[in-house]
């Protein structure tokens, strides 16, 4: 139980990831598929950010008054880039969904089968 509590963030990550994957695969609505993808991305972002956490760690600003341990700032910097990528993917996907709706009149995957 102790180990489970200590790694609570990892469990949350796995659950969130699975919710996202399920939404992406099982929902026929293209918008919901995109939302599922975003949930998956958020799960991975959260996982990487928490991996930089150090128990009782201070913000890594070295000004002489605070002495370690410091939290790792690198994962946050990485995820900032990751978020930018995710946003551009979402924007492109939304544009494509609008285009699909204009051309086909629906964004339900099961109704789109005959079109493709």
């Amino acid at each position: 139980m102790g180990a489970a509590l200590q790694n609570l963030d990892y469990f949350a990550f796995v659950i969130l990831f699975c919710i996202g994957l399920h939404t992406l695969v099982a929902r026929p609505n293209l918008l919901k598929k995109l939302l599922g993808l975003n949930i998956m991305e958020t799960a991975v972002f959260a996982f990487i950010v928490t991996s930089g956490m150090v128990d009782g760690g201070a913000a890594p600003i070295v000004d002489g008054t605070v002495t370690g341990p410091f939290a790792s700032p690198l994962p946050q910097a990485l995820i900032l880039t990751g978020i930018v990528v995710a946003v551009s993917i979402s924007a492109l996907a939304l544009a494509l969904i609008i285009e699909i709706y204009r051309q086909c009149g629906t964004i339900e995957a099961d109704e789109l089968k005959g079109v493709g």
Partner: protein
Amino acid sequence: MSAWLPLAACVPLVAGALVPAVGRRRPQLAQGCALAASGWTVLATARLTRRLFMEGPFSYAMGGWAAPWGIELRFDAWSAASLFIALIMLAVLVYSGPYARAAIEPRRLPWYYSLLLLNLGGMVGFACAGDLFNLFVFMELVSVSSYALVAVGGGRIAALAAFKYLLAGAVSSVLVLFSVGVLHALTGSLNMADVALRLAAVESRGPVVLALAGLSAGFMLKAALFPVHLWLPDAHAAAPCPVSAVLSGLVVKVGIIGLLRTNAVFAGVDGLPMAAFGQVLAWLGALAIVAGALFALFQQDIKLMLAYSTVSNIGYIVLGLGLANHAALTGAGIHVLNHAIIKATLFLAVGAIIHQTGSRTLRELRGVGRMMPWSALAVSIGALSVAGLPPTAGFLGKWYIALGAFAAGQPGFAAVLLLGALLIFAYYIRILNAFYFRAPVDDNMRSVHEAPLPMLLPVLFLAALCILGGLFGRWPVALVAPAVERLAGGG
């Protein structure tokens, strides 16, 4: 000058960002800018490759920060693929002039060139990235521009195919990012050489296996390895032909190069089930060879045929990676380069035919060989080459992979390889039969002319490379040999 390496990736990226701005005022300049930027990239990568031949692999520390902390760009044998990438992209850009004018709305043209340049910059950067996170960022540059390129021609199938491609691609990116996160959490480093060193000291094997599995699954999805190839045929067939050439020839190879690069990270770690992993790869590759070729055999649409043929050829490369001995890896490395040239030739030549005739099924294209002799000749050379007939480029890679199968004591895989080659040959015979030996179905075919010169020249240039790549096979073998040495030695 040592700045050639970062500039090789940066110039097309910056140019890609500027082209829409230029194109807003002067749309006719957009193609010129794109040509200049990609021409520059060819020059830069050619210089880098020459240096690689003379001095061996070298690195560039971005901003002067040394390797484990700073961002490292590394130019080694796999990075030399960027020369081929740049050459093919240049050919595609020349070809795009007349093709894109007809197939793409005028106001979208500058964006089309911009996306192609971003794609080029992303691929060159991907090939040269020395750390895991840059690998991810450049992969995303390539992917996002590819999704958009599929839809750039417009039409309902294209938008839908692009969306499907986007979902598959984004899932694979999430897997890769997750594995990068795991590796960073385990080792505290992102530089690939550094991670490889530190992984050996990591005690728990579970997370390492998880990272290996995540990276492999992610890159396999990007490379459209059977059975996760479902996004590929629609995306590659719905895109405009020059884009199909880029996607099929180059972008799927991003997955393969990623697989090669990240496998090297795990090579030094003891206690990983690498042998079993190799067997899984080999079997998946063998399945992909046969399945891709069978699907291709039953297509009527010529572009769908070529797309399934890509699935099959990715199978060859992955089979080579899975067998993991010296000959097989050499074959896989060579086939990465040669398949890029062959598939680009085929898609561009078929694109010229589709552009001139307006039809794309085998039935409607009967008899086109007499009307468009040069384009049909290029298709024939590409077809013989992809089937792997001896004097052409496709033969070399498959020969080495077959040798590798015998060396690994699994001649069954060599039999699969031969079966695949026969099936591929069968469906290309179908194409050639329709082109040359069948009477046209409608009379419009008799008034078809050969494609304009800017389309024909790149096609013939690439077709010539298909043959030269086979005749001068020593050069690519010499190129990949040192990289193979390291992979086969460690794993």
